């Protein structure tokens, strides 16, 4: 390289070298960093499995560690490599799976698991475990983990919402048994003073999850059995109109509550009678209300003869397949073993006693019903469990939340002004937005289930029609 420098050439070259060295060092550093994570493969007899743990609270983590210790003691040939503090529904799992580096076991919710299974990332556990294993779990939680006839995970708990109530604000401290009575109770509480509001309920951006409970109370659903959105159906519109009347007709609710924190502010300060929420907030309410706190199933709809059915989901363990995690057959077997033991009787009982998680195993449920002792509120949860709907785990479900939030907040926004926005137009708009979202993203509008009777029927019908023509 020739230069026009007036200085001495050797010096100049040396300094050019320095710059070059900087480049080389950086490249070398990258190369070293690249080569570091490669580990030698473990001996064949020993198996290492990687786990992503998503235990949320301190109690859940403690129960996880106890079950883990039991597993490690029982399987000395299996080394468990755990990553703590991962969140549920993490996209990392998908992106890692793309490059075949997903963990062997992930603790996730059943609906997220459904989307992972439909993406072809998970092992179908029914090919590894006898059906007698699955029959130990409640049918509701197993159905949460079933998609197209495959079982892609084992549940460790079950969760959903029920009705919390404040005994001090209700006649005789008793919860209402019908929706009609609930509204009457709420009207009475609202009349106690201007700072009271019987039933503050945010119909808004983030309420799609809790709102889903009201569709079945009018005979409706979110998606029909083929995965087509049903929000514009008569029952779903009736559900929205009913809840909307709390604001516009009975004035037991106000528009403009921003999310659940406002509802909670009313409830925790004894200024509202009811709160629809899950067991994860129970300790907060217990601290605020003490013995006045009660839990009951969401009340029966005496007008239609249906119960409200909250989405009843589940957290569980799932196993990544070879394509997603690069796992060997031995690793997958060890992972299945791990998953089974992390969701067994001891594990779920620990989880219940330490974190208050409702169990997914029938046997633990029986034990709790027999020994309600420590937690007087558990009876309410058990009662709610018999009126629930399956948390949809079809891919279409991901397209429900945002359109619902948009429609609901538009409705709430126009509570006083624009009368063109009605519950009916809102539901119409929500369904249209879901369909548009599905179409934009190339998700099939109706998903015919593999080997389902529906498909067979269609095939027969089509065959009949073509034959006739």
């Amino acid at each position, binding site marked *: 390289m020739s*230069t*026009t*420098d*007036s*200085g*001495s*050439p050797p*010096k*100049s070259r040396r*300094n*050019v070298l*320095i*710059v070059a060295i*900087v480049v080389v060092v*950086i490249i070398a*550093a*990258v190369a070293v*960093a*690249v080569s*570091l*994570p*490669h580990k030698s493969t473990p001996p064949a007899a020993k198996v290492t499995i990687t786990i*992503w743990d998503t235990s*949320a*609270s301190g109690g859940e983590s403690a129960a996880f560690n106890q079950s883990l210790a039991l597993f490690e003691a029982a399987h000395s040939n299996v080394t468990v490599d755990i*990553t*703590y*503090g*991962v969140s549920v529904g*993490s*996209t*990392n799992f998908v*992106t*890692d799976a*793309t*490059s075949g*580096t997903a963990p062997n076991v992930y603790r996730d919710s059943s609906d997220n698991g459904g989307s992972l299974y439909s993406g072809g990332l998970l092992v179908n556990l029914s090919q590894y475990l006898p059906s007698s294993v699955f029959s130990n779990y409640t049918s509701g939680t197993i159905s949460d983990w079933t998609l197209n006839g495959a079982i892609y995970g084992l549940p460790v708990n079950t969760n959903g919402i029920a009705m919390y109530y404040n005994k001090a604000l209700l006649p005789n401290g008793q919860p209402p048994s019908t929706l009609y009575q609930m509204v009457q109770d709420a009207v009475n509480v609202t009349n106690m003073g201007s700072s009271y509001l019987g039933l503050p309920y945010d119909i808004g951006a983030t309420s799609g999850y809790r709102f889903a409970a009201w569709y079945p109370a009018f005979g409706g659903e979110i998606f029909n059995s083929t995965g087509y959105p049903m929000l514009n159906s008569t029952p779903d519109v009736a559900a929205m109109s009913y809840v909307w009347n709390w604001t516009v007709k009975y004035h037991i609710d106000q528009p403009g509550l921003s999310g*659940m*924190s406002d509802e*909670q*502010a009313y409830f925790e*300060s004894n200024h509202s009678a009811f709160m629809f929420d899950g067991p*994860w*907030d129970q300790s*907060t309410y217990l601290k605020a209300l003490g013995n006045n706190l009660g839990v009951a199933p969401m009340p029966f709809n005496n007008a239609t003869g249906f119960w409200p059915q909250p989405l009843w989901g589940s957290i569980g363990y799932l196993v990544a397949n070879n394509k997603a995690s690069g796992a060997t057959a031995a690793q997958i077997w060890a992972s299945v073993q791990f998953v089974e033991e992390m969701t067994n009787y001891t594990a779920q009982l620990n989880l219940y006693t330490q974190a208050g998680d409702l169990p997914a195993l029938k046997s633990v449920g029986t034990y709790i019903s027999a020994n309600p002792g420590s937690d007087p509120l558990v009876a309410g949860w058990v009662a709610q469990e018999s009126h629930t709907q399956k948390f949809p785990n079809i891919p279409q479900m991901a397209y429900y939340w945002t359109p619902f939030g948009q429609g609901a907040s538009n409705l709430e926004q126009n509570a006083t002004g624009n009368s063109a926005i009605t519950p009916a137009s809102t539901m119409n708009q929500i369904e249209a937005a879901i369909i548009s979202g599905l179409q934009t993203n190339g998700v099939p509008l109706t998903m015919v289930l593999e080997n389902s009777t529906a498909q067979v029927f269609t095939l027969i019908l089509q065959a009949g029609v073509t034959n006739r023509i």
Partner: protein
Amino acid sequence: MINNENTPGNEIQQKSVSEARNNYYRRIRKTKRVLTHIVLILVGVFAVFPIYYIVVNSLSPLASLASVSVTSMLPTITKLSFDNYFALFAYQNDSLLRFWFPNTLIYAGTATVLGLVLSITSGIGLARFNIPGKKAILYMLLILSTFPFVIMIIPYYDMFSSLHLTNTYWGLIITYSAGAVIFAAWLSKNYIDSIPKDFEEAAQIDGYSRTQALFRILIPMTKPVLILALLLSFLGPYTDYAYINIMVTKNSLWNLALGMYATTQISSHAINYGMFSAFAVIMGLPIFIIFLVFQKYLIAGFSITMYK
């Protein structure tokens, strides 16, 4: 509103008239001054209040956001409490001090240093050499600033996971330094443009090679822009949330922003607002102090790099 009077051309008037006029202008000037100060003070309150709010909250025994009130904003020495800080340090087995804080310093520190080395050398290259395609490179640097980072997420993830760099320090540091390079290279190029070549040329006459002159004479003179670039490029990795959230799953690799989001989001309804406030103060204060100490470089750096 620049402070000068609307002086008429002809000044020679009778004395009494001129006195009256002077009084008039004095009044105008005074009103102007008072108005200016009122505006500036109002803006100042607007600017400072949220920080004041969070500091006061962190020092008072708060249960939740609900217990913040207009009166609780008034400083009361008697209620001073450091409980929120103790709770924060103990949170999740001292995660803050064991992982989040050191990790953040490692990510941001290494990335900044690496990014600055790259950008100062390229700044010299662009300012002092007639490199072919120089204009194209300058445009390129600028065009890159129009790319939203979200488009990079999935490609980076593909690249880094095939290189086994996800869930490692290096994976993050490399991307962060790339983020720092673009703006810093552009800043230092502009700054070096404004330094006369005389110094290097004098050094070359004294027997230095050109490269030596650039490294020994020029680089020390770029201190103001180095500090400016350092401040600006440190801040990005220091507060990154969106990117690290995707690249890292291990709790032990979390940075402050992930830790903060977790502390405020876990059981968000029952959010411990006092602890959040303490976190906000601890995480923000170091940067804040550094900014105040080096504030003269902000203006100096900008005025030189922007003035053409």
